[in-house]
């Protein structure tokens, strides 16, 4: 008997199938390329730093900057997004209360992956369209000074916590497909972000809104940027990358992003699922607790290995050594973005279509353009991972030349290269399915 009952959803809270594992040969070729490039960069590449965040990009026509910065453009973008958010909220309340509600797709696909793609293409857009910022701008407190100054020591830590809360809901909680859970999460997000903004002003959005910080991270790899004079310019993303602000928590933000993506594919492995099933009854809170610990371990491993590798050099004093992980952190961005796209591209393209169809009640069919071409998809995945790795290695090499004293510039970056190769091999292994 086939019943069209409400379909509860499991994987990623969105249901449907997940990607095929990449073929063994693809993983091997990707790994070989990653090794080759790392070797080539360390041994043969340039010996003088080339990239500089202060180097201005090639300015685009002034008209573009004028149009983008015009209050009319800003208000239109902000208000359209606010209306869309309101539409999603209405759909979340009066729409079907099951897996076919568009809220899930908006949350897991558009907010998590779509925003990254958009920020990578055109820059940190969440700053311009964030519904919280728009609401704040519409209220009187925004025209006064903020009651308190944001404590600099907090840095990006609140955002790291927010990002962890997101990946926890998606990968560790009891039912990521639960509409109620997503609604509670979003209400908490709105509450915390609005309250923080009322207390600390928009600096709270810039430092503590997980989506804004994620967008800033992705935007550092964008060819589009602003010159010092505010002109919109196009330039080498490697010059743009080092402009990632170094604040307390920067490394943690990146570790949450990379660690959670790796945990995502790890948790699909049957060995892990058997382990969770076997031990779920013997620990308090069961499977949720085990998955939470697993997620935390993945994040901690990334944060620890990266920090140790960045510090593993001779010829620097203690204070400089402590600063090294933060100042190298931007080189993780391409690895994170490459890995995120390798994982979630099908989600963005196919679930994205599904979400738009659900959101506006369209009578259209989802085109499974990637799933039906597994070879193309596998090639794309390996290309994303390897390209991210190469860009990460290049950025790390250049920054090492900047930071490390002469005589330690080659040996001082070996540990970092080793760790990056480790990330990429692990990533390919997980995409290959273990």
């Amino acid at each position, binding site marked *: *008997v*086939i*019943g*069209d*009952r409400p*379909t*509860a*959803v*499991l*994987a990623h809270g969105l*249901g*449907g*199938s*997940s*990607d*095929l*594992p990449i*073929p*063994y*040969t693809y993983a*091997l*070729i990707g790994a*070989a*390329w990653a*090794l*080759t490039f790392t*070797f*080539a960069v360390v041994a*043969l590449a340039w010996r003088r730093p080339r990239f500089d965040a202060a180097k201005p990009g090639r300015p685009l026509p002034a008209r573009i900057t004028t149009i983008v910065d015009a209050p009319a453009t800003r208000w239109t973008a902000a208000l359209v997004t606010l209306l869309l958010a309101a539409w999603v909220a209405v759909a979340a309340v009066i729409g079907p209360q099951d*897996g076919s509600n568009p809220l899930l797709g908006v949350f897991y696909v558009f907010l998590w992956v779509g925003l990254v793609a958009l920020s990578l293409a055109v820059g940190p857009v969440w700053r311009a369209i964030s519904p919280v910022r728009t609401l704040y701008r519409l209220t009187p407190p925004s025209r006064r000074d903020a009651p308190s100054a944001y404590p600099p020591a907090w840095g990006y830590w609140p955002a790291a916590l927010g990002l962890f809360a997101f990946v926890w809901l998606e990968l560790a909680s009891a039912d990521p497909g639960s509409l109620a859970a997503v609604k509670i999460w979003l209400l908490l997000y709105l509450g915390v972000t609005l309250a923080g903004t009322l207390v600390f002003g928009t600096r709270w959005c810039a430092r503590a809104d997980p989506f804004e910080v994620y967008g800033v991270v992705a935007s550092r790899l964008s060819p589009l940027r602003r010159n010092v004079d505010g002109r919109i310019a196009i330039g080498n993303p490697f010059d743009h990358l080092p402009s990632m602000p170094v604040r307390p928590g920067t490394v943690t933000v990146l570790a949450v992003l990379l660690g959670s993506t790796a945990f995502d594919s790890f948790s*699909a492995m*049957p060995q892990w*699922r*058997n382990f969770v*099933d076997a031990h779920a009854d013997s620990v308090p809170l069961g499977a949720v607790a085990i998955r939470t610990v697993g997620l935390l371990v993945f994040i901690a491993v990334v944060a620890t290995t990266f920090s140790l590798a960045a510090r593993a050099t001779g010829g620097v004093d203690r204070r400089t050594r402590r600063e090294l992980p933060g100042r190298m952190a931007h080189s993780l961005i391409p690895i994170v973005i490459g890995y995120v796209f390798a994982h979630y591209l099908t989600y963005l393209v*196919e679930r994205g279509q599904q979400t738009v169809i659900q959101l506006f009640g369209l009578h259209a069919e*989802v085109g*499974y353009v990637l*799933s*039906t071409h*597994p070879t193309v998809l596998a090639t794309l995945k390996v290309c994303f991972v390897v390209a991210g790795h190469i860009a990460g290695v290049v950025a790390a090499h250049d920054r090492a030349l900047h930071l490390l004293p002469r005589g330690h510039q080659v040996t001082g970056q070996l540990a970092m290269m080793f760790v990056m190769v480790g990330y990429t091999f692990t990533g390919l292994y997980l995409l290959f399915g273990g």
Partner: protein
Amino acid sequence: VTTLKIIQTLTAFTAAALITAGCGGSTSSDSASTPSASAPASTDAPQMSDQQNPPTRLVIDVTIKGGEVTPTNAQYQSAAKELIVVRINSDVADQLHVHSNPEHTFNVEPKSGQSFQFTVDVPGKVDIELHQLNKTIATVTVQ
């Protein structure tokens, strides 16, 4: 000169990579066989929709007894548009969810000899899950 050296090194490595990859590929291609799907019992084949059964199909036998599910987290291979049959002996009512694109849902009743059949058209890894017991029976890799 340095550029030339880099290019030479890269070419050498690529060649090495391709050779390694080629070797690995030829040994590991154990074709999309269907483990434990050997017995397509034709006697109690469900008469549901398919007029023309494809020559091959995947049969998964499931037992639900006293809250225990066998198998769990099993791995199977299948091909797109190939018939997949899940035969269930159960002592409780539950719901069978097939996380394919689009999804399938079947009601499991507390009785023996039920079978449910479906095809998966879009390649991917498809979880077959029991909703109430919250257990994944199997993941079918549909090529």
